[in-house]
């Protein structure tokens, strides 16, 4: 169906990941914020994970969009 779902997934998680990374960097000097997360700057670390995941999805969507549409399989319809 027309839209490749990897585009929105990739965009969403890249965006949220970038937000968390920035938040993590800005608040990295404030131990109070991360007392609840056992002193780990979880926003920065997890933001990076999300960013990598989002970028991977975008890369796959981009690769798929450059290939010609796959032919219909034989048992369709």
């Amino acid at each position, binding site marked *: 169906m027309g839209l490749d779902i990897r585009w929105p997934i990739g965009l969403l998680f890249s965006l949220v990941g970038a*937000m*968390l990374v920035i938040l993590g960097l800005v608040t990295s000097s404030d131990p109070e914020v991360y007392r609840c997360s056992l002193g780990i700057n*979880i926003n920065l670390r*997890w933001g990076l*994970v999300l960013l990598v*995941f989002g970028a991977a999805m975008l890369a796959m969507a981009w690769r798929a969009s450059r290939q010609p549409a796959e032919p219909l399989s034989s048992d369709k319809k």
Partner: protein
Amino acid sequence: MHISLGVIDYAVLLIYVAFVVGIGFALRRYMRSSSDFLTSGRSIPAWVTGLAFISANLGALELVGMAASGAKYGIATSHFYWVGAIPAMVFLAVFMMPFYYGSKARSVPEYLKMRFDERVRALNSIAFAVMTVFASGISMNALAKLLNQLLGWNYHLALWICSAVVLVYVLKGGLTSAIYTEVLQFFMIVLGFAPVVYLGLKDVGGWDAMNNALHGVAQNPAALHLKPPGTTYGPDAWSSAWKPLLAGSSHNPMGVDVFAMVFGLGFVLSFGYWCTNFLVVQRAMAAKDMGAARRTPLIAAVPKMLFPALVIVPGMIAVALTSIPNKNYRIPPPPLEAKAITAAAAAVKAAPEAANSQVALADIIEQVSAAQNGVNPQTGKPKKLMNFDEAKLAQVVKAFASKPIDLNQTKEEKACEEQFLAAFTNTITDYDYDGVILSLVRKYCPTGLLGLALTALLASFMSGMAGNVTAFNTVWTYDLYQAYMAPNKSDQHYFWMGQAATVVGIITSIACAYFARMYNNAMDIIQLVFAFVNAPLFATFLLGMFWKRCTGTGAFLGLSGGIGTSALFHGLTMAEGKGGWLGANLQSFPSTMAQNFWMASFAFIVCFVLTLGISLATRRSKTDEELKGLVYSLTPKIKDHEQAWYLRPAVLGTILLACCVILNYIFW
């Protein structure tokens, strides 16, 4: 007691909503016919339908409920995944999908009509349509209540806004929209909750430390108020999956025996759900070709097998943390109603006037319980007494009796009231197990991550509604409206009807949410009735798909008999005070779970035997030719030998089952 969200948290939430609405609008231009809208025009790749398949099942109530069961029963809860899902999913892919997809039925009820007759379809489609609407109402009520308690949002506003978001994207993009947002939600749940589990495990000291703590808990669960005083289990009751179960129903916190688990859950209930519930089967039917349709449940089985780590382990962490004093954590008490808070404050203030401290404490408990649980009109006593740690309660009374806690005018008094509330709820020894997952999110998430975790939860509530509504509108349009009310109309007419059914479905869901909010008991009864209807269904499918001699009359009467059996069984047995409404109690079960498993087993057997007997006694209504593509022995086998091994369902299914056995062995 509210969590305050930061700007970032709201931003994450808004971005998610913007994306799902955006997906709806982006798909609008592909919606041209009723089949585009209701069945996605059978055009979606297998990995997408596979993730949607599992996501439609992993609703928010499942997420919340599995963490609760993880706390109540420990790792044995995984049986809902390893015994109660994987084998059925493999069976669906290998044996049943060829009929569903190959017959070109647009829904499960339509398959029943092709295989049997209109009566079976009508019975199934009406029950299913009503069930989806109630299911989505129950889940939306839970969502609005949660947003109200957690974030202080207005209940009505939360309910209507979330429903409106779902309405917009389903109305624009139909089933495709629902499937796409389910995939989005899948990743949200995994990526939103994984860090919470990681932090929780780290805090408790790692996997082994958690199990050590659970060994202590199992030997004396009453110390944490998990079970009535005097209960004791083997040390591995919370940390082994099979050993406590094999020891018998009184040796595991579930109160379930092996037969009920393996036959009742693992065969009857699980195959009944995964192989016949249109909510999940619809996702596989939307796949782009037969191969993709068959791979859908297999792809879904991979995350399903691993989900216990994400949804059950948090419950186990919560119990372990509760048992370690210096972790400063407890499984949350049930949230107090506003009335109960007022009653608590008044009762604590009145305490010094009582004859002695024992009477004072009993008074407080009675008044708070009456405000929280309601009063029995006949006796004038609270319907249910809450449990308190009386020593702690006495301390709270001492500390707060002379303080201005019943006012909240000035800042000082408000602060005092909050302190009181925190201290008072901490003396309650009842547990709100459904609150476990959120209490961990609240404990470990700094602002930022908090937004992600809450958005994941909200996403799963909303996609749960979307899933139910898209299943409802298809069954309504094709199996009820087109079949019985307005056959032979143009496709554009059914397209329009599908959209109208979406709007009606959402409005009815909202009505059901209000209904669930007002009549908790009525809701329990409705869910019970659905359990009656679903328990025997798999017997009908099994005979229908694998025995060409099975007749429509046999199927209809067998199914009706099975439904009657489950009602009768529930009316004549008791568990935890439930059931027995026919006046007699022939058998008592240690838990409602055991009662359900046994009920399903009985209903299945009766439905199977009746269908078999009546089919033999009645004349066949369909010829071999008519049953081609619908019954196993009359359908040409799909040849997939030339395909790569990783595309062949039988090979994949075997690998998955082997992995499942290994997991069971590891956590034996």
